[in-house]
């Protein structure tokens, strides 16, 4: 019995192991760039495959848990995968594949020679580790891994703007780490355990749950910084536009989402004693995040900066799902997560092609792409309109489900905010469209004519996935609903990790 479980549950560790081995292989092949490139593609594809297999396994067999080193549950470190984790891992795999392909065509030789690929995979390792960890301190470790990997990716190349952005990035994120660690410490001091399932059990038995609520605020802030919510998001717009586009794309797709994932994890599993206080607070933060983010975007005229502020705004929608704390709302948030990861990364990749063609990200200097690059125009419209919530793209269904849940629960204010922000999102997407695509190019400046196929393939791939999710939203919603069910009922997670005892 035990043996069977272990063999089956090996799928949990693969999404951590595959990027690690890929990175190690790439480091060993330091002087052979071509080997690194091939390894990177293989590793990404394998990660996607492992993620899909994991999702399938969790779908059929329920929540999986793996005790690392076979130390029994609260004592060793547990990896656990529910549907939400598995979905996140699949998304990481999908981005790994597309961004790696994109990097093959767009990354310069110097960065490739200084370890771009191994560090990219370490980042993926950290991300997947965070999604799969069932231990609050181990989660901290994965946060550190992805922080250092992202910091190195951010600075790699050493351009002046990069370093300036990276300083802010690392300082503010270390602040988050410090608060996170403090929270873990205090939590351990209260409950005497680190395993999250065990923590859930111990915290539920607390005589004074009020102190847990106070500690939960530390986590809210620490993960809130990571997730770039209001008023803690400064590091994101300060840094995301500085590295090469491939890096921005994977950051935009995954980094903040790890923070959101962690918020979902702890505020559905651990901190559910005072929902009316904690989750209302989350809802308020969600509203402000949506509004300030989108207003930030409206003020921008730089393609990538504009997109960066939209990341912030969209995080608000995800938190709205958590703040409503209802299976329907969380299902909507899970669906929203899939949509926003895809839409955002695709948009960043498109911005890279635009830069390739016209040599700038400045909307004032861009123009004429509707006439000169109609295919690219279409590839922009798909994620952009999805982000703005135009049907039948996935962003619409995500918004629909979220607002529907909000109205159903009588949360009219946040629902109205969500709708209003979506029209502003549309406004700023159209701004890009009008400036970069429709407007004639102001100065017939540098204009590459051909678009490298390898830059376009990943975008086409992502756009097809977006379209597919829109047309076949039914199955994904069923999946999201099951994921939300698991989140709203921690008993299953606890059972899977701690066993029947």
């Amino acid at each position, binding site marked *: 019995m035990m043996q069977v479980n272990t063999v089956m549950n090996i799928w949990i560790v693969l999404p951590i192991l595959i990027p690690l081995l890929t990175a190690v292989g790439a480091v060993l092949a330091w002087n052979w760039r071509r080997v690194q490139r091939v390894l990177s593609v293989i590793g990404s594809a394998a990660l996607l495959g492992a993620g899909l297999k994991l999702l399938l396994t969790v779908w059929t067999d329920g929540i999986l848990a793996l005790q690392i080193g076979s130390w029994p549950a609260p004592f060793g470190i547990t990896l656990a995968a529910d549907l939400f984790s598995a979905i996140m891992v699949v998304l990481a795999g999908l981005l790994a594949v597309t961004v790696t392909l994109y990097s093959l065509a767009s990354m310069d030789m110097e960065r490739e020679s200084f*370890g771009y690929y191994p560090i990219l995979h370490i980042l993926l390792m950290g991300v997947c580790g965070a999604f799969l960890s069932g231990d609050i301190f181990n989660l901290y470790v994965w946060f550190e891994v992805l922080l250092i990997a992202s910091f190195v990716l951010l600075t790699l190349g050493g351009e002046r703007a990069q370093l300036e952005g990276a300083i802010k990035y690392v300082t503010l994120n270390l602040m988050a780490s410090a608060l996170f660690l403090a929270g873990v410490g205090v939590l351990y001091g209260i409950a005497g355990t680190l395993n999250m399932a065990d923590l859930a059990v111990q915290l539920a038995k607390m005589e004074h749950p009020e102190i847990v609520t106070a500690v939960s605020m530390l986590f809210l802030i620490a993960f809130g910084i990571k997730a770039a919510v209001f008023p803690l998001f400064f590091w994101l717009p300060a840094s995301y536009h500085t590295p090469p586009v491939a890096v921005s794309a994977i950051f935009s797709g995954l980094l903040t989402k790890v923070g959101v994932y962690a918020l979902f994890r702890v505020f559905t599993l651990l901190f559910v004693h005072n929902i009316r206080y904690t989750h209302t607070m989350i809802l308020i933060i969600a509203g402000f995040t949506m509004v300030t983010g989108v207003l930030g975007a409206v003020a921008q005229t730089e393609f990538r900066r504009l997109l960066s502020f939209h990341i912030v705004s969209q995080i608000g929608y995800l938190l709205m799902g958590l703040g409503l704390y209802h299976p329907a709302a969380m299902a909507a948030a899970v669906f929203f997560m899939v949509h926003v990861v895809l839409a955002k990364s695709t948009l960043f990749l498109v911005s890279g092609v635009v830069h390739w063609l016209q040599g700038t990200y400045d909307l004032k200097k861009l123009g004429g792409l509707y006439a000169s690059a109609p295919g690219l125009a279409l590839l922009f419209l798909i994620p952009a309109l999805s982000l703005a919530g135009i049907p039948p793209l996935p962003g619409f269904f995500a918004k629909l489900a979220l607002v529907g849940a909000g109205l159903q629960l009588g949360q009219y204010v946040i629902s109205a905010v969500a709708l209003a922000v979506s029209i502003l999102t549309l406004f700023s997407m159209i701004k890009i469209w009008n400036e970069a695509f429709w*407007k004639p190019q102001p100065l017939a400046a540098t204009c590459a004519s051909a678009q490298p196929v390898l830059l376009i393939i990943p975008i086409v791939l992502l756009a097809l996935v977006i379209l597919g999710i829109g047309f076949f939203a039914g199955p994904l919603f069923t999946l999201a*609903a099951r994921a939300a069910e698991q989140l709203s009922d921690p008993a299953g997670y606890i059972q899977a990790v701690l066993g029947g005892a």
Partner: protein
Amino acid sequence: MSIVLACLSGFALAVASPWLYRLARGATGWLLALFPAGLFLYFSSFLGTCIAGNAVYTAYPWIPTLGIDLAFFIDGLSLLFALIITGIGALVILYAGEYLHGHPHLGRFYAIILTFMASMLGVVMAGNLITMFIFWELTSISSFLLIGFDHQREQSRAAALQALLVTGAGGLAMLAGLLLIGQANGTFALPHLLSQGGAVRQHPLYLPILLLILLGAFTKSAQVPFHFWLPGAMEAPTPVSAYLHSATMVKAGVYLLVRLGPVLGGTEAWHYLVTTAGAVTMVIGAVLALWQTDLKRILAYSTVSTLGTLVLLIGLDTSLSIKAAMVFLLVHALYKGALFLVAGAVDHAAGSRDITQLGGLARAMPITATAAVLAALSMAGFPPMLGFINKELLYEAKLQAPRASELITTLGILANVALVGVAGIVGVKPFFSKRHTTLQHAHEVAPALWIGPLVLAGWGLFNGLWPDVLVNPLITAAVNAVQPEITSVELKLWHGINPVFGLSVITVIAGVGLFLSHDLWFRENWRAWLLQTTSRISPQRLYELGLVGLNKLARAQTRLLQNGYLRYYLLTIVATTIGLVGYTLFMPGLPTVTTESKLDILVHEGVIAGIIILATIMAVTTRSRLAAIAAMGTVGYGVALLYILFSAPDLAMTQFAIETLTVILFVLVIYRLPRFALLSSTPARIRDALVALLAGGMMSLLVLAAVAGPFQSHLAPYFAAHSLDLAKGRNVVNVILVDFRGFDTLGEITVLSVAALGIFALLKLRKEH
């Protein structure tokens, strides 16, 4: 199945059309027009079913979790719209092929207009509220792309954005309304909603729901004060204006109101809101139409007026008014479509759309002129056109209005007189008044450009003469769908001499007078004065101011928040932490942290703590970097000592090593740094000190509150017990690091390796653009 195919095949054709255009070039318009023509015939076959009062409904589950079906529903109302959409669609596509002949983006144009057509069909045929909304938004997007088709021009882009924002915002309000309707009834399926209308009217949120839905309908159907996007939308190529912004899309709001009438209507609120909006729009549109000079803008404002009349009729909500609305819908689509296409032909042939420049074109363009005059006669309501029958009906409905019938009739006369004048100005004046010298080269247009207007205008005549052939059955079917109690509609050209006929005669005489005296009252300086005065208070201006305000607000907010200073970012984060955690700590219910809880500090512990505090103060206040680093080292050593006191020698040794190394490294770096300078002002330093103290105090309080309870680690006993027998190690800490929690160590090793790689790259790789 075939209904689904009929509604959705347009999208497939849209995708294929750019490629088709590459193959067929000039013949593409003729080929593509066959598609809507075929659909027209297909939908005609439903006429019998619908006259009998039956509806067809098919649904396929799409997103069962959310109650969304891909559902289609055909009754007489849908059918009337579908026939207008496909019939005029065929003519417009044919027309566009010629009108945009040789345009580099003609292939894309076909793709977008076919997308629009399929979406519009979807709106009127959807059998599920959400499905309908999906198509509704698609019409907005395709409209955006078509208005901005001439994308090189800034006005086109701005008009496209404006139309999208106005209809998009209304659409979102409507979405909320639709969601609430669905929640009130437990279904989005149209047939179920229609059969259980009462649920929404009794809902406590009825009024908000009504307002939200009306916002959607009014923005889409250009009701005052949201009408301004429609004249702006005239930036679109003329076939687009004829099709989207006169015959079909702008009527989507009207469709929605009629469709949801059984669900939302029949209340006082409905009656007053809808009637008022319609009446105001009817009058304002008609009056503004008189003062335009651009043919298309004149037509656009008269469309606004028509839409107002339609909404007014729906608000009256009598069987007569619904009948009148259905007829008007059809009549207007025919004559206004024709007039728009004529305007395009004139523009094409004479190079101008300015009525002050146009005149005497009848000789050069006889066929176009015939179409124009026929359409104008229908618009003005002359017998024997269908427009005449319609005008009689309109007056009848207004006279029998349940409330304020005198006022409504008077306003109706006013608007109608103005529209008779407009009909003359756009349909007669360019062709028959004095020929302008600049129009020497004017010529008759190619057949593709006159077939459309001639067919549409001809239908207005044919149906007026023989209403029984097509109009009566069609209107019967449509009215049947909304007012099942009416079994058949009998429209007749001649009703005899009665008050309604009297009103018609008065309207025509006054209107013709208005037209004939056009040169007298249409003065450039009056016009300029009027436009200037209205522009100051117009919604258009509000929109522009709103846009400017939005941009200003956005910039101000972003300057404030994302100000670029790391120190303020940190300050904000720390302050937020203090606020959130502090507030939560002082909420009632927490165990109070008093001196009774174990604050039994021993002397040597106190001494170490004192040293740490002193060293911290020194690190912050000193003006020497070396001293600051030494002080930081002291803090570290102090902490390490505490570790020893609390029996963690391993930790202490690590800490000692790290502190020592850090100090040494710092000292090595320090001489490469610029001279020490005090950059912060005193108030800033005081503020920072305050924040720091608060943060420290908050953390201390939290920790004290946390350890107030009994602490018992669940892990330590297990580690102590099994370190040797299971993990084969005597040093428990080591065993934890490399075995029990070895996975953490794997992560930490990775962190160190990546950091090393990163530093290597930072030192060796410097790219500069």
